[in-house]
């Protein structure tokens, strides 16, 4: 139940992002049933935006699937980063936890993990399932009401995603012992992602930047 409660602060963010995703999927010509499948089976905001965009521009199936794969490769890092807190569970139980892992549930989990050695399985499921159901509802609402919203950007809906990431990073930084080092890592990540994007690494940019910045964190730690 605590997991459900801890998910609540992210719900509005989910609702607005999910609503926006639903609107965009509808505009891309997806049916209600297809939108439902996307949110239930794929369950990844960034990937759904990409799928909608590429379907609308008649992208090939292979191109769509692999673009989504590269965008979601960052889940490798998220999954690896939460793994120390679930070592007391079996691989199968870890699979269930991982299957519903998102940027947001990851952010909430890592915030709770600070100062702890393990996270509870029940807490994580509470968090994950609340997020999952809320995401589905938001997607369907967006797809349903989407026909009346012609321009989601005018309402600032597209900023829901970056705003939530900002909130998650600030919460993380506030609770870290070595704040300065983490702030430096964040700045390096931003600089790296700019250069990586300019080098046309596309969806790999975020992964490359995060790997460099995290490595620099370990290196800077040694300097002291």
């Amino acid at each position, binding site marked *: 139940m605590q997991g459900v409660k801890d998910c609540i602060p992210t719900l509005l963010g989910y609702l607005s992002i999910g609503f926006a995703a639903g609107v965009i999927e509808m505009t891309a010509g997806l049916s209600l049933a297809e939108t439902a499948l996307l949110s239930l089976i794929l369950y990844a905001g960034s990937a759904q935006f990409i799928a909608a965009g590429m379907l609308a521009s008649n992208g090939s199936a292979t191109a769509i699937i692999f673009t989504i794969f590269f965008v979601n490769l960052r889940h490798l890092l998220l999954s690896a*980063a939460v793994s120390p807190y679930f070592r007391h569970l079996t691989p199968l139980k870890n699979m269930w936890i991982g299957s519903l892992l998102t940027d947001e549930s990851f952010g909430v989990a890592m915030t709770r993990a600070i100062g702890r050695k393990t996270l509870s399985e029940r807490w994580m499921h509470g968090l994950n399932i609340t997020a999952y159901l809320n995401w589905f509802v938001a997607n369907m609402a967006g797809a349903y009401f989407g026909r009346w919203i012609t321009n989601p950007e005018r309402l600032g809906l597209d900023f829901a995603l*970056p705003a939530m990431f900002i909130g998650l990073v600030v919460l993380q930084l506030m609770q870290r012992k070595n704040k300065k080092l983490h702030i430096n890592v964040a700045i390096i990540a931003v600089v790296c992602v700019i250069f990586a994007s300019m080098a046309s690494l596309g969806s790999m940019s975020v992964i490359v930047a995060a790997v460099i910045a995290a490595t620099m964190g370990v290196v800077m730690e040694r300097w002291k």
Partner: protein
Amino acid sequence: MEVRWDVFWIIMGSALLTFIPRVLPLMLFSKIQIPMWLLRWLEYVPVAVMAALIGQELFMADNQVVPITHNAALWAALPTIAVAIWTRSLLGTVLVGIVAMMILRYLMG
């Protein structure tokens, strides 16, 4: 209400390739001892990934840096960051971000 076959297979294919990176490390590291250096490294990963995502959202469009004067997202980020530090509330942060963006888009035309 129909589901087209090609769309169905795109959803299935991308879902599978999304599932694997999500669960693989969690399943693997529950059996294998994680080396110390990897643990130290993983401590920096969350902030690094999220900062990189923010960086991409705020500064870039089509592999180009967006000029500051035309970058509504960058300006909207300022009150958003301030509210995040001040209130430490995720809900408040997202709300202020959306409203700031709406106002800026209106002002910038």
